[in-house]
């Protein structure tokens, strides 16, 4: 589903140049659950943002569903993003002025779906993630776990091909973190491709494969017990 070939990303300011990703190549197959791990500043989030088309690579090739997207402009990326990718962030990134229902509904609005269809889909997803009783609440009125559940609802309401989660449990206590991981696992089991950045070894083990990054490079890749396979070490 995703094929990255020699992807590099450099951030420049007036004084310094930082190589965030250095010729990374990797592949994510449809239906896979991949965790990306590594120390702070190693380029995990940058890689996730590139995969999610929130940012564009400096060089290299990015095939999404067989199409080369590395040269896409913001407009084309936005179009592809809203149809195919759901995001879950560490800081939830819910809109404070909108209720739970309205937050979840937002991507459907941008897809120009009819109101009745939107209502049906939002209610369905809220029921599924057990947040329907909070539909009229605002984000500040919810616990962190509940907020993240809303964020997950928002990510999956469009039935994306790919779910990207950037440290989705980073701001949650262990119980709520576990709940979110259970949700992601369930979504993966139902067929969604999931790529997750995490610091937690325990949560990474819920994935089928773990990609380790250091200084903007993939240093190793391992299959977990969820994906019975032999351990591979690349360099």
């Amino acid at each position, binding site marked *: 589903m995703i094929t990255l070939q020699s992807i590099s990303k450099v951030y420049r300011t007036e004084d310094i140049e930082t190589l965030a990703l250095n010729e990374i190549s990797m592949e994510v197959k449809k239906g896979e659950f991949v965790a990306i791990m590594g120390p702070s500043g190693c380029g995990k989030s940058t890689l996730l943002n590139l995969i999610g088309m929130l*940012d564009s690579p400096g060089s290299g090739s990015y095939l999404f569903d067989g199409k080369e997207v590395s040269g896409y402009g913001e407009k084309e990326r936005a179009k592809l993003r809203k149809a195919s990718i759901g995001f879950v962030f560490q*800081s939830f990134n819910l809109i404070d002025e*909108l209720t739970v229902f309205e937050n979840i509904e937002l991507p459907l609005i941008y897809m120009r779906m009819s109101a009745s269809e939107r209502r049906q889909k939002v209610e369905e997803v809220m029921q599924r993630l057990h947040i329907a009783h909070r539909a009229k609440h605002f984000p500040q009125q919810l616990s962190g776990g509940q907020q993240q559940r809303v964020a997950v609802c928002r990510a999956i309401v469009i039935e994306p091909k790919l779910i990207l989660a950037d440290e989705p449990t980073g701001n949650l206590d262990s119980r709520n973190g576990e709940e979110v991981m259970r949700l992601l696992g369930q979504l993966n089991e139902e067929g969604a491709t999931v790529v997750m950045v995490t610091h937690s070894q325990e949560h990474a083990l819920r994935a089928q494969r773990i990609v380790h990054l250091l200084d903007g490079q993939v240093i190793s890749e391992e299959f977990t017990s969820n994906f019975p396979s032999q351990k591979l070490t690349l360099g």
Partner: protein
Amino acid sequence: MIRNYLISSWRALLRNRLEAVINIVGLAAGISAAILIYLYVSSENSYDTHHKDGDRIYRINSVLELDGQVDRVARNSLRSVVELHEDYPEIQDYCRVFDIGKQSIWYGSKMFSERNICFADSSYFTFFTYDFISGDEHCLDEPMQIAISEEVAVKYFGDAESAIGKQLKFTLKAYQVSAVFKSSEKETHIPYTFIISMSSLNRGFYQQAMGDYFRMMCFDYIKLAPGAEVAQLESKLDTFYNKRIGPWIEQNQVNGHLSYSLQPLSDIHLNNSWNYDYSGNGNAQYLQIFSIIGIFLLVVAAINYMNLSTARSSKRAREIGARMVAGASRPQLIFQFYAEAFINVLLALLLAIGLVEMLFPVFNGLTDKHFGYRELIQPEVLSGLAFLVVCMTLISGSYPAFYLSSVRPIEALKMQGNRNAHLSGWKKWFGPANLRRSLVVLQFSIAAGLIVSTLVVYGQLEYMRNKDLGFNQEGVVAITVPGDSSTQGRLKTLRDELMKQPGVKGVASTSSIPGGQFGKLYFVVTLNGQRTNKLLGFSFIDDEFIPLMNMKLEGRNFDRARTSDSLSSFIINEACARFLGWEDPIGNILENGFGMRGRIIGVVKDFHYASLHNPIEPMVFMHQPNNASNLLVRLESENVANSYDQVMNKWKELVPNHPQESYFLEDFIRKNYIKEGKMLQVFGYFTVLAVLISCLGLLGLASFSTEQRTKEIGIRKVLGASAGNIVMRLTGEFLLLVILASLLALPVTAWFLKRWLEGFAYALDMSFVPFVLSAMSAVVIAALTVSLLAWRAALSNPVKALRYE
């Protein structure tokens, strides 16, 4: 989708109440001021646009040139327009209007002193459109007919319907009411409420006036034939001069020239560059100034919105990022920001309309207008307001719309808490922080400019009010003397009786009141052996006038005992001596237009007979103790009010059959500066408003900045910074911006003010004081505004501040 935008905008508004109040109240204040200014400016521009065929009506103004002396006057002779009509088929019709000033009018036991009276040709009502209550446009066809306004009819006859056929008695004649017309609801420069048929004029007087091209007594209006070109007609007027006026000038041995200028009817009210025009005319320059102030206020208010929106941008970045991630396209985000701006502007407009309704009484008092809610629901006002909403939405929503929506989603999500750090290149330069700084500078430049303008206008007004006029006007009462022969014949008795009243120091007579307008007359003087005509100001006075007014005189005063003084003596002012090139004028010969020839017996030190808008003009006094239109009574400085009452009671006893009219000379002179006074008031109000709106914006920014720097404040306090250090740090940047704004604004304002002062013949010397004061007040006001919040932040518990972050 729109519902979603509206919901989030409305909730954002409720969540950020301080910001919302600043935005909406500031915008409302700006819009309400702009609405008032718009109503005023459009009312002033609407003068005489309602008359039927008004676009074909022109007034003939005259440019007189006599021995090199040029006078541009709004009036013309009785004669010329009649002949122009005969000579040029382009002129379809003409109407002469002869203003006869103040008159006493009687009906039964009622008597009033009235102004706004004229003689006019029978075509008057075909030129100027009025609705008739009774009578019709032929009401001036016959001699001794008078058309009156509805108010006049009610005042004299109790109602408008019964006025027709009744007689209004003037000093010399009575006229029969032939029509009652409704006072125009539309604006017009024509002030008349009594219009007498021109054919009622004394035949002898009329014939005499018809023989002279240089007796500028009428306002002459012409109506062009349909299709006639005004430029074409103007180009032919030289031929008229050669054919008609030239031979007359030669025949009458006048060394002069006369040319005409055609002024469109709708241009008369605001173009007051012609002498002897209607005194109630407007001022195009003030209109421009008010329009600029209106735009400034809108800009200042719009800046608040832009500033606070960009300030909030980092707080909103997460929302924008989330929307982008959720699939919002750039046009959708732009639309959202515009929708928010639209809601704010709409709320502000509704509040502004309420404010305008509340302010109408005050504003009407300032502008002598009668604005009410009806003006607000005029189609052009409503469409103007719709246009304003669109413009303000575009102006105030554009930056947030385009800047924030141009940020990439990942930048938006990273933007939280920091201002420009995430930006690079051009975006940093044009980033929100620098834009806010520039807008604060612009806003305070406007505020500082308005403050200094108010100070200079105030200074000029005070200068004019307090300038030594060359005579002492304090405690002098002017009484209008009726022109009938019985009163004029008793002038000496009246004067003597008034002198006997306690508290009266002196009584003098004059034909024109100091501080008002004086007449001009042709004088013949022999200069370098050649007789030449000179147009000079004149006044008839008695021998008491110069001492009573405390004027300084060289030579001798008129002497009532010398009959020759009334027949062959003149007193001139220094300006006249200079104008005629006489170093030692006493003893020189002068001859006036009435044929009186005599010697100069005295020279009065220059004084300001007219207002300070005009330079001191050459002036000639003639002695006429037995005929006067005004008496001046100087009262003792003690018990002025009491003395005044006694004098006027005596006057009523002495002249019982005429309406009384009297006023203090000081008040009369002060009226010359009413326009400047009103301008000062308007300037003052709008300056305060601009400063308040700017401060409101600054308060919002300071609140934002303090909130942004909570963590920094906490850390600094933990490291030992005092509250004073923190306040300095928080206010310093804003103060620097305000100082920069003052430095930028003041030279530009100085240039404009210098030009404004050049319009006065006598203006104060502009010093640096008002500029320093204005810069200082801008800084102090800004410092007070910002430090209020800064102190609160500085005194807060540092632990709280750190926990907050």
